[in-house]
C-alpha cells in the first residue's frame, strides 16, 4: 500500500485534524465508501439468495408474477437511472475541473432523475395495489391463474414472488431516497462553493453510492421483470 503519510501540512479547512494530508483523507473516504458498498452487496445478497432458491422451486409462479409487471415502466425506469448515473459521473468530472455551476446543474438533474424513478416506481406499486398483488390479507392471485391457464400457479407461491418483489424493490427505493437526500445535501454544499478541484471527495463518494444503487437496479430489472417473457407454449 502506498500510504506513507508525510507530515506536510497543506492544511485546508476541510482537512480534518487526524489526517496528515489531503490525499490520505481522500483515500480513506473513498476506501470507506467502497467497503460500505461491499456490505451493501451482502445486504442485497441475502435477498438474492432467497430469490434464487424460490425461483428454482416456484418457477411458474415467478414467471406469472414477472409477466404481470409492466415491462415498459421497468425499462423506462432503467433508462432514467442510467441517465442519472451519467449526470453523476459528469458532476464528479465537473467538480474536478472546478465548474461550480455545472456541478450544481448536474446534481439537480440527478435528483430529478432520482425522483422520477421513484415516481414511476410508485405508479407500478399502485398498479400492484389495484391488482391485489400486495402480499398480505388482501392478496389475490386469481387474475394470474385466469390469465395463464398454461401454467399452474399456487397462490401461496405467487405471494412469495411478490413478497420478494416488494422487499427487493422497496429496499432499493429506500436506498434511492437516501441517495436523493445525500445529493440534496451535496447540491447545497456545491452551491455554496465548498467543492474545489482539490477537494471534491464528498461528490466522488456520493457518486459511488449512487452508481452502486444503479447497479443493484441493473440486476433487479432482468431478475424481476424479464424472467420469462417469451410466448408461452
Amino acid at each position, binding site marked *: 500500500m502506498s500510504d506513507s503519510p508525510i507530515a506536510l501540512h497543506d492544511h485546508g479547512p476541510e482537512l480534518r485534524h487526524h489526517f496528515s494530508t489531503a490525499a490520505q483523507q481522500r483515500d480513506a473516504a473513498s476506501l470507506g465508501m467502497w467497503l460500505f458498498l461491499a456490505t451493501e452487496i451482502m445486504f442485497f445478497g441475502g435477498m438474492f439468495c432467497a430469490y434464487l432458491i424460490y425461483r428454482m422451486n416456484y418457477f411458474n409462479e415467478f414467471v406469472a408474477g414477472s409477466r404481470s409487471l409492466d415491462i415498459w415502466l421497468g425499462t423506462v425506469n432503467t*433508462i432514467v437511472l442510467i441517465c442519472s448515473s451519467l449526470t453523476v459521473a459528469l458532476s464528479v468530472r465537473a467538480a474536478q475541473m472546478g465548474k461550480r455551476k455545472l456541478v450544481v446543474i448536474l446534481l439537480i438533474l440527478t435528483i430529478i432523475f432520482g425522483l422520477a424513478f421513484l415516481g414511476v416506481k410508485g405508479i407500478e406499486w399502485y398498479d400492484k395495489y389495484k391488482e391485489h398483488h400486495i402480499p398480505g390479507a388482501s392478496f389475490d392471485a386469481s387474475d394470474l391463474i385466469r390469465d395463464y391457464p398454461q401454467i399452474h400457479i399456487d397462490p401461496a407461491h405467487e405471494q412469495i414472488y411478490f413478497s420478494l418483489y416488494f422487499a427487493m424493490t422497496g429496499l432499493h427505493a429506500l436506498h434511492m431516497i437516501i441517495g436523493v437526500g445525500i445529493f440534496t445535501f451535496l447540491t447545497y454544499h456545491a452551491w455554496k462553493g465548498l467543492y474545489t478541484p482539490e477537494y471534491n471527495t464528498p461528490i466522488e463518494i456520493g457518486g459511488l453510492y449512487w452508481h452502486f444503487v444503479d447497479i443493484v437496479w*441493473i440486476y433487479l430489472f432482468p431478475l424481476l421483470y424479464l424472467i420469462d417473457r417469451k410466448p408461452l407454449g
Partner: protein
Amino acid sequence: MSEHIMSSKMYYGIWIALMVLTVVTARVAFIDLGPFNTIVALVIATCKALLVILFFMHVKYTSEKLTKMVIISSIFWLLILLVLSLADYGTRALGHG
C-alpha cells in the same frame, strides 16, 4: 486517485452503450431462446454493471489495487453465500432425506 479526469466523450459513450444494452435486454426477453434467455439477461446485466464500475466509478483508470480487492472479495463472498446455499437445495432431490 481522482487526479485522472476522463473526457466527457467517454462518459457519453458509456451512457449510449448502457442505453443500447437496456433496450436489447428488454427486446431479447421476448424471443424464445430456451434456457438461454436467463443467461443472456444476466450476461447483459453484468456487462452493464461492469461498464458502470469500470468507467463511471473510475475503477479502470484511477483506482488502486485495494479497491479492486474490495470489489472482488465482496463478489466472492456473495458467491459463497449463493453457492453453498444451493449446495443444499440443489442436492435435496437426490434423496436420503
